[in-house]
């Protein structure tokens, strides 16, 4: 088996996910793909697995060109993808889940439950988890779910196996088991693409590594020819010496508890981050801007959602008093605001007018009614052609988001929580939103903003009293301030 990709390209509208990705993996090779947010690792994996259609480029398996239109076709061609977005049925048993793509038949019709169980048990035994076979999927803890996803790909007898971040929820012991199985597959000539943000896993498991950045494959190294600092240096452009020097000084300095006489607005101490089980502590003072960075899905969203009372209970000090966040309504009434990047799902009322949308939070929840929606809309520069009573969906995405921002700023929030608020809006709207956030901070409110775009965070954190907290696997790995806030640094600290 061998896999060759030549100049793959993938665009989503104007967003370029893959610019020019070329890799060549030989028989029995385990190749790591390494890169930050939006570097195109997952897109490359999906393009090879037939989950998305590429715009250009050639994929060759065993020197024969292939073009899979669907994951089912790719599976028939021996290419199987296991991804962080699991493909499991919570209502079926583990055995049924593992065998869902390859159910054994008896006399051409009947489901052969015995054979199904038997084969599932075989695979689970290889993963040292035979005891879970009859459990319903939903009873499994997260790490075992990922193991089942892995088991599901194994029974499909992959010739080209793509593992996209499935180790992120696994314990060390689990990863060792997966490593062992991967090496067994390697012996049979299977080609494996392995995506992980854990540096030590790459060095432990893989034969070679390809660095990706902005949708381009930068370089490929034999694993024994490189080091983690070399990889980071190549990806970020920070000189190796600096990275090494940093490692030594990391243990000494802890810059978080600086003396500051501004009033503390939000004090979080050892709050458990649900889903990660880690403890988080940080303080936001009046006039603070906090950017939350890291690779996607490492707890940034979960953290601010937990603060806002979405999901599980959270307790912390807010405005000097103990506050238990139990619901969004309670938090909003206490002068918090939440901006979501998921406009259609979480922000706008699509069937309602612009006026109603802008008034909803202040009038209905907080109880500080807006007199004139028009004034507010004009203040935030919403372009609505003088028709404030048309449906909000008649506006462009950027203007819709402005309406949502206006809705919350009009409530004069003390603490604004923003979850990737500029996702998918144009540059001008984005600039305007940043300006609004800066104004809010200058008036003495606190802002915590998550962004999947590191450059955006660097840009907006150029103001005083701004810092960037970087999370990895739900843990704060670094707090950057002042001139240290650079995209290179953010990426460098995003990897465990």
């Amino acid at each position, binding site marked *: 088996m061998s896999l060759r990709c030549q100049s793959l390209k993938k665009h989503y509208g104007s967003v370029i996910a893959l610019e020019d990705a070329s890799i060549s993996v030989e028989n029995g090779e385990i190749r790591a793909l390494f890169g930050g947010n939006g570097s195109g690792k997952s897109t490359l994996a999906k393009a090879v697995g037939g989950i998305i259609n590429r715009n250009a480029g050639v994929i060759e398996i065993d020197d024969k060109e292939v073009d899979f239109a669907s994951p089912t076709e790719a599976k028939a061609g021996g290419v199987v993808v296991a991804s962080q977005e699991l493909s499991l049925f919570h209502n079926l048993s583990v055995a049924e889940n593992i065998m869902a793509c390859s159910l054994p038949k008896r006399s051409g019709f*009947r489901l052969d439950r015995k054979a199904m169980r038997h084969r599932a048990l075989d695979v689970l035994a290889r993963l040292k988890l035979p005891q879970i076979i009859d459990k319903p999927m*939903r009873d499994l803890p997260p790490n075992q779910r990922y193991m089942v996803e892995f088991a599901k790909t194994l029974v499909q007898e992959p010739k080209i196996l793509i593992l996209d971040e499935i180790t992120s929820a696994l314990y060390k012991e689990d990863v060792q088991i997966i490593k062992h199985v991967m090496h067994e597959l390697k012996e049979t000539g299977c080609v494996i693409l392995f995506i992980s943000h854990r540096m030590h896993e790459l060095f432990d498991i893989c034969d070679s590594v390809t660095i990706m950045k902005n949708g381009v494959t930068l370089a490929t190294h034999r694993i024994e020819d490189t080091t983690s600092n070399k990889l980071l240096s190549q990806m970020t452009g920070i000189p190796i010496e600096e990275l090494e020097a940093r490692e030594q000084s990391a243990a000494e300095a802890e810059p978080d508890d600086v003396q500051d006489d501004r009033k503390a607005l939000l004090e979080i101490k050892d709050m458990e981050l649900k889903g990660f089980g880690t403890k988080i502590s940080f303080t936001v003072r009046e006039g603070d801007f906090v950017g939350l960075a890291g690779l996607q899905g490492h707890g940034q969203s979960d953290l601010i959602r937990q603060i806002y009372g979405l999901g599980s209970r959270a307790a912390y000090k807010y405005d000097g008093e103990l506050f238990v966040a139990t619901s969004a309504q309670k938090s909003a009434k206490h002068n918090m605001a939440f901006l979501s990047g998921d406009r259609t799902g979480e922000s706008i009322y699509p069937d309602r007018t612009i006026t109603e949308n802008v008034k909803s939070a202040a009038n209905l929840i907080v109880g500080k009614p807006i007199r004139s929606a028009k004034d507010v809309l004009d203040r935030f520069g919403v372009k609505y052609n003088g028709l404030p009573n048309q449906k909000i969906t008649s506006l462009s995405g950027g203007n819709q988001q402005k309406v949502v921002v206006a809705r919350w700023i009009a409530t004069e929030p003390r603490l604004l929580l923003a979850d990737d608020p500029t996702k998918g809006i144009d540059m001008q709207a984005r600039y305007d939103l940043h300006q609004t956030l800066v104004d809010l901070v200058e008036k003495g409110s606190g802002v915590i903003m998550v962004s999947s775009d590191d450059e955006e965070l660097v840009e907006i954190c150029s103001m005083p009293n701004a810092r960037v907290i970087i999370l990895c696997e739900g843990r704060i790995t670094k707090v950057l301030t002042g001139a240290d806030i650079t995209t290179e640094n953010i990426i460098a600290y995003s990897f465990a």
Partner: protein
Amino acid sequence: MLATIKKLLKWTSLPAIVLFVLLLVYNAVINPGFMKQSTFYTFLLTSTPTLCVVMGVFASKIVGGIDISLGSLLSLINVTLAWMFTNTDLPTALVLAIGVLMGMTGGLINGISIGVLRVNPLLATFASSSVYGGLALWIMPNPGGFGVPQSLIRFTNRIHFGFIPSALIYLMIPLALWLIYALSVRVVAVYGIGGNEQCAYISGMPVMRIKMLAHIFGGLCAAVGAIAVTGLIASGDPTIGNEFSLKAVTAVVIGGVALSGGEGDIWGALFGGLFLTMILITIVSSKVPTFAQNFANATILFVGLLLAVLIKLVSEYKRTHPRKEVKNYD
């Protein structure tokens, strides 16, 4: 042994069975004649049309949809059969075959609008329900069509070999079909689609085909129910099935089938249906005044529904909040 009991306690059909047995015992106590074989056969026969619709609704629910048109479809087939028996000379078998075909076509129409055109199942079947019900009223504005052949009436009321009533034969047709289908490899896909349609698609399961099949099966169930009704009342009644649709949905919910799909089995649905029809008998035998009967019926139903949902919530809670692990030394 202990494991079997534990499994039984977790069985989604258990609440429905318990509710049914409770009513059964109550009836046996207040009405000594109730446990006679003949009473039971009558009970089963009058329940048959409802139970057929219940099985149809069950199939649509298990794949994550719903079908509230089956009662109207049953009415439509019932009046069509009665009309054909009265106004044409077609042989009985042919008329019945046409009825079955009508049912499957009605189901196919639902299946196409839901599976292929992706209309919301509730809306799609609400719309088709109006169409089927309207057609039934057009064919036969008032109950009538008394030309139903004696052979069908006699067969419907007969008890074979002294212990197999025809009602059971009617019920066995859809039940056996379902149980056989449930043995095939498709059963994983059926439950999988109900659990997560997107995953089912990614896993290469024929989502569209299975959804259509579920609705065609529902139509078939309505047809069998319609034939039983025709033999039972020996005529056509354009509104006879109207109340079956929502009754069946209630029965299926009481039977432990998840509203979102992918969970529960046909036994629970059937016992849910039996519980529902048993309520009526209970009210009559308890000598509830005529004007209060509707109220009593609805109240028992409501309590039953609450109990079933409550039991589910409790087991759900136990599942998501397991007790701290205790070391097992056996």
